[in-house]
């Protein structure tokens, strides 16, 4: 009796009663990862920069959602306030800070976003200390009984909301003039400029859309997760992996990639334990770079 009975724990892990809920759980978690990745991939696809401020903006949005709740605004309602607000923040950041500071060189933009991340994170630390904050919404512990497993209501809402956001984004990109302009700039910046498209404006709109995605993700996370000045970073490293897996700049890639990574993480933490759960993600990351550097849906460079 000195050792835990090994065969029993292996049997437990392999039974469908645990694998199916684990996959479902991976899909639900992956959807939120996908939303964070969506913002990242959008900015990369158009501006061709990796936005290092993404995590810090996610943290800032989580704080915003937290304080909105203190004023009695439910996080899901706050989506409709914070998404436009963070669109404006993103637009202003690109138009007034990142764009002018870059002097037309993409590498400069990268460094500027890194600088913004440092400033946002430390400002939050200064203002709100390292304390962890949580909100207690009445539906946080509600779950739906699927017979084989319970699924928490906030996670289902999150899953549905991510697909709604992806749909809205797709509609914007396909049918609006702004969307067409964004796609034109992504494809051929100089050509678009010659055709009379205001590239600086398109850049800022794209950055704003990316930031709005993060604001929505924050509102979906806050009911079940906690907020502190480094909370956002936990999600952004995964988002980078998803962007590479799905293809840099690909919106469907980010969506599918997010779900795949969610399931991989869930299953690898089931089989190898949570301490090694990340290994699965980064093995995929390396495999993609070796075998298909352009990602699942990425255009070949």
């Amino acid at each position, binding site marked *: *009796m*000195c050792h*835990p*009975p090994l065969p*029993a*724990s292996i049997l*437990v*892990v392999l*039974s469908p*009663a*645990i694998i199916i*809920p*684990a996959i479902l*759980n991976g899909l639900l*978690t992956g959807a939120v990862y996908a939303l964070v990745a969506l913002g990242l991939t959008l900015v990369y696809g158009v501006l061709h920069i990796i936005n290092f401020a993404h995590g810090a903006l996610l943290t800032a949005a989580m704080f915003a959602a937290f304080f909105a709740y203190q004023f009695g605004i439910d996080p899901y309602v706050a989506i409709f306030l914070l998404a436009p607000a963070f669109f404006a923040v993103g637009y202003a950041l690109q138009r007034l800070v990142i764009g002018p500071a870059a002097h037309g060189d993409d590498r400069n933009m990268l460094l500027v976003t890194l600088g913004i991340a440092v400033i946002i994170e430390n400002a939050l630390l200064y203002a709100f*200390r*390292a*304390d*962890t904050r*949580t909100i*207690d919404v009445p539906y*946080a*512990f509600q*779950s739906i009984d699927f017979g084989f*497993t*319970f699924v*928490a209501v906030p996670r289902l809402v999150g899953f549905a909301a991510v697909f709604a956001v992806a749909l809205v984004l797709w509609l914007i990109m396909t049918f609006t003039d702004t969307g067409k302009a964004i796609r034109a700039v992504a494809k051929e910046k100089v050509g678009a400029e010659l055709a009379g498209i205001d590239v600086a404006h398109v850049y800022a709109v794209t950055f704003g859309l990316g930031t709005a995605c993060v604001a929505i993700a924050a509102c979906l996370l806050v009911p*079940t*997760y*906690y907020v*502190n000045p480094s*909370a956002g970073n*936990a*999600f952004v490293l995964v988002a980078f992996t998803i962007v590479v897996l799905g293809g840099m700049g690909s919106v469907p890639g980010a969506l599918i990639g997010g779900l795949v990574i969610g399931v991989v*993480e*869930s299953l690898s*933490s*089931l089989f190898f*334990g*949570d*301490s090694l*759960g*990340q290994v699965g993600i980064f093995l995929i990351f390396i495999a993609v770079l070796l075998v298909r550097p352009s990602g699942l849906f990425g255009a070949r460079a």
Partner: protein
Amino acid sequence: MSTCKFQLSRRRFLTTTAAIAAASGSLAMPSVLRAAGAPVKLGVLHPVSGALSYSGTQGRLGATMAIEEINAAGGIKSLGGAKIDAVLGDARSTPEGGTAEVEKMNSDGVACIVGGYASNICLATTQAAARYDLPYVVDVGVADGIVTRGLKNTFRFGPGFGVIAKTALDNLVKINDAAGKVAKTVMIVHEDSLFGSGLAKLLNAQLPSKGFQVLETVSHPTPNRDFNTIVLKIKAQNPDIVIPADYYNEYVLLARTMLQQHVRPKAIYSVLGGAASSYKFVKEFPDAAKGIMDCNHWFNPHSDKALALKKKVEAKGQFFTYEVYLNYSCVGLVADALERAASADRAKITAALASSTWSGHIMPYGPTKFVNGQNEGAAPCNTQVQDNDIKVILPAEFANGKAIFPMKA
């Protein structure tokens, strides 16, 4: 000579200066006599910035509140009512930060230092202070290495890890036996740094001999985004008792996910559990916290002084956490030593601390007796979240509640 009155001869200058010096000297005399009442500088060292800043700030609050109370009550009487003068320091959540602060406090001429909080900081700061024979009272730092290195200047008023773990196991058996040995299986969930892994290893070694079967031990990193997979495993294994060894955030996420997934074992029992005996957790998530048992630092719930302090801390809008009352107590211990030493001399304070039999404090400890710097009277309490409050269920002489075990599903 017209310039005479403006000219100062060397002799005249010297005599005047001497006269002024003498005059000021005689004026200074009373203050020299009063030097017996000169303030005693006490270093108050905590990690108030960085990852541990919440705990550090709470610790500083406890220490400064104790100093204010002692000063308001007339200071150190054997030193002519000398006030305690707090020299605040920030260890910046790292051992290096703590060491640098000890150097600064030493050159500031502090008589003693209280604090450190984290084990790794305390290991470094006590050693730095030892070089100056500067007495140091560790506030929390539970690692047993802190008091087993033979440092003459180092004192720990609270219990160490070994004592806490042993008490936790003994009390688990006691609670289970009292309920008719209903629990036989255990699952351990721990964070994968020194604290969680060390505890998991110890539990795995000790639990089987106490009649418990460890079904599975699951580790996870800090921070961990999602506990659903771990909770699925718990559900599949269906252990009688879940033992989490986590820091605050992860502990709360785990308990919340268990509630979401309707996983209710007979007990959630933790040792130094990050959130298990935290008023913040109980207040914010009463449903998730309900029934959780913990073996941890706790104040004496029968002490009027402790309850008065709790009220005062809560009036400041802060939670009455263990950092607060441990630091409050450590300052009290130092004040008692100063009183008996009747001196701010470091060697005399060290001797007074070593021979301390301080009583009348707010902790549920036995008689104070230092052996190699460790207070042998120190002991943890077993607590349980009951009726949106935290009750002490063991040891019996300090209890204000009875264990509810097994938990109702």
